[in-house]
C-alpha cells in the first residue's frame, strides 16, 4: 500500500479534531493550550503534505517553519498569561476566570 496525500490529510484531520475537542471541552488552561498545539500541528502537517504532493515547492515547508515559531511564541505568551492567571485567581480553570478584574 502506497502512502498518499489522503493518508496525511486523514491524520491531519484527526489531529485537528482532537485538538479542537480539547480546546472546546477542557477547562484547564494548560490543557487548552495543548489542544491549540495539536491544531497547529495538524495545520502544519497539511502544509507539508500539500507541499509534497500538490505544489512541489517549498512554500508549505516555509509556512510550517513559521507556524512552529509562532506556536513557540504563542506558547510562551500563553503560559505567561496562565501563570499570571494562576497567581491572581489561584486556579487555571478558564470557567471560573470569567472576568477581567477580581
Amino acid at each position, binding site marked *: 500500500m502506497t502512502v498518499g496525500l489522503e493518508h496525511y490529510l486523514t491524520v491531519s484531520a484527526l489531529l485537528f479534531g482532537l485538538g*479542537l475537542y480539547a*480546546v*472546546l*471541552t477542557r477547562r484547564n488552561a494548560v490543557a487548552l493550550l495543548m489542544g491549540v498545539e495539536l491544531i497547529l500541528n495538524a495545520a502544519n502537517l497539511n502544509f507539508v503534505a500539500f507541499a509534497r504532493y500538490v505544489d512541489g515547492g517549498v512554500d508549505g515547508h516555509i509556512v510550517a517553519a513559521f507556524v512552529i515559531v509562532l506556536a513557540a511564541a504563542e506558547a510562551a505568551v500563553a503560559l505567561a498569561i496562565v501563570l499570571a492567571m494562576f497567581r491572581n485567581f489561584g486556579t487555571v480553570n*478558564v*470557567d471560573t476566570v*470569567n472576568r477581567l478584574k477580581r
Partner: protein
Amino acid sequence: MSEHAILLTALAILLLPLLSYAVLFFFGKKLPRQGDWLGVSLLGVTWLLAVRIFAHFWAVGDPGLRIEGGVRWLDLGRFTADAGILVDGMTAIMLVVVTTVSLLVHLFSVGYMHGDRRYERFFAFLGFFTFSMLGIVLSNSLLFLYVFWELVGLASYLLIGFYFDKPSAAAANKKAFLTNRVGDFGFFTGILIFFTAYGTFNYFELFAAAHLSPLSGGLLTLAGVGLFMGCVGKSAQAPLHIWLPDAMEGPTPVSALIHAATMVAAGVYMVARLLPLFDPGSLLVVAYVGAITAFLGATIAVVKTDIKKSLAYSTISQLGYMVMAMGVGAASAGMFHLWTHAFFPALLFLGSGSVIHAVHTQEMPLMGGLRHKMPITFWTFLIATLAISGVPFFSGFYSKDAILAGALAFGMTKSHYVPFLLALIAAGLTAFYMFRMVFLTFMGKPRDEERHHHAHESPWTMTVPLVTLAVLAVVSSGWRGPSEGWFSRFVAPYDMERIVEQASGAAHAGEVHAVPAAAHGESVLPQEPHGEPAHAAATHEAPAHGEAPAHGEASAHGDAHDTHVRHTAHITAMILSILVAGLGILVSWLTYIRGRISAPSVLARLPRVHHVLQNMYFFDEFYAATIYRFTLWFSWLNGAFDRVVIDGIVNGMGYLTRSLSWFAGLADRYVVDGLVNGVGVVVQGAGEGFRRVQTGRVQSYLAYVCFSVLLLVFVFRAL
C-alpha cells in the same frame, strides 16, 4: 311764520329739554344750585316757542293745516323710514299742554324737592320726560311715535322709581313698566299690520292709503284694537290700569306731570291722531273700554282714603272719559277734555303735594281744617274740584258735557246706551268724591291737632304754579264747547278727501316725502304747503253741536236727522250732567259737612260693595291668581324643561363623552400601550434569548465559530 321757521321752532322745542337733560345729567352736581335754574329756564324758552306756534295756528285758524318735514332716516333696500316732524292744530294744542304743565311742575319741584339727595337728577329726568313726550307729539310716523312712546315709558319708570331704595317704589315702577309692555305689544302688532299692508309709517300716507283701500275682513279691526292696546297700557285703561295708582309712589310733581296731565294722555292723543285707522268695530271696543274705565275709576275713588290714591283713580276715570269720547266719535271733545283735564288734575296733584308737604301724610282721615292754614292751596284745590266735577262755567264742564253729548248721540244712533249711562254715573260720582276730598282735607275740624299745628302754606315756587294752574283750570276751555269755540281752530275731524287729495297730489308732484331734502343733506325742509285759511273757514263751521263721527262713517249722509239727534243729545246731556254733578255735590255735602248721612253706616249696609271697591275690584288679586300664577307656573315648567331635557341632553353628552373617553382610554391602554410595551417585551425577550449565547465562555464561542464555518462550508458546497 314761514313753514320753515315753524319746523325749526318745533325742532328747537323738541331738543331744548333734551339739552337740559344732558347738561343736568352729566354736570348737574357741579352747577350752582345743582342746575335747577337751567332746567326751569330751558323749559321756559321751550314754553315760549310752543306758545309761538300755538299763536300761529290760532291766527291761521285752519284745523286741517299741517306742516311736515323730515329726513330719510333708514334706507335698507326696499325698507325705508323717515324721521319727521308734523305740526298741525292738534300738535299745537299738545305742545302747549305739555310745555305748560312741565314748566309749572319744574317750578313746583324747585320748592318740593328742595334738599333731596338726588335733586339735580330729578330735574334731569324731568327734562328727559319732556323731551320724550314732545317727541310723541311732534312725530309724523308710527315708527317714531313708537320710539318716543317707549321713551316716555322709560322716563316714567325712572321717575316712579325715583326713590328706588323704597321697596314699594321699586315694585311700582316695575309694575308700571311690565303692564305697559302688555299694551305696547298690541301697539306694535297694530303698527306692523299697517306697515305690512301699506308700506309706510307716515300718518297721512297711511290715512290716504287706508281710506282708498281699506284692509279686508277683521284685519282692520284687529289692527285698530292692537293700536288701542297701546293706549290701554299707557293711558291706564281697564284692565291695564293697575299700574297707575301704584305709580303714585313717585314724587308728587311727577304724578302731576306724567301720571295726570301728559303721559297718560299720550294714549288718548294717539287714538285721536290715528282715528282714520280705526274702523267701527275697533271704535266700539274703544268706547266700551273707556266707559268701563271711567266707571271703575270713579267708584274706587269714592272709597279711597289716601289722597293721592284717590286722585289716581280719579285720573283713571277722566282718562276713561277721553278714551270713550274717541270711541263714540266725539274725538274733538276727547281732545278738548285732554286739554282742560291737563290743567286741573295737575293742579289737584300739585295741591295734594302741597298738603302732603305740610302735614306729612297722605291719609285724608288725618287731615281736616286745613283751610285756614293753607288758603292758597285750599282755594286753588277748590277751583280744580269745581272744574273736574263739571260745574258750569269751569273748564271741565264744557269738555265733559261735550263728551256726554257725544256718548248720548252715539247711543241714540247706534243703540249702545251703556257707555253713556256709565259715563253719567261716573260724572255724578266724580262730583261726590272730589268734594269729599275737599271736605275731608280742608273743611271741618282738624282731626290730628299735632299735624294741623305744624302745617303751613307752601313757598312761592309751589303756590305760583298752583295759582297759574287754577286760572287755567277756569279759563282754558273758553266759554263754548269744542266744536264751536276757539278749540275748533285747532282740532276738527280729519277731512279725509283733502288728505287723499294731498297725498295723491304729492305723489304726482314727484317724491312723496322729504326724500329730496335728505338727498341734498338738508336737515329740515318744509313741504306740502296746504294752508288755505279761506278754504278752511267753511269747514269748521259745519258741525253745529256735538260731533261729527270722525271715522267718516256717517259723514256722507250727515243730514238733518243726524243734526237733530246731535242737537237733542247735546241739550239732554247738558241738563243731565248738571243734575248729576249737583246731586253728587249735594250728597257729599250732606255726608261730610252736615252729617245727615253717615258714611260708616252706609258702608256697613253694603259690606260686599265696600269690600269689592276697597280692594279695587280685585284686579291685582285676579292677575295674581291668573297671569302671575300662570307666569310662575310657566317659568316653573320652563325650569323643569331646562332641568330635565336641556340638562339631560347636556349631562347625556357629558356621559357619552365620558364613555367614549373610557373606550378611548381602553384602546390607549391596551392597543397603543400594548404596542409600545410589546416592542419592549419583544426586545427584552429577544435580549433574554440572545443573552444565553453570550455566555462569556470563549470555548462556546469557539464552538459556534466552528459550527458556523462548517455550516458555511456546507452552504457553499450546496451552491
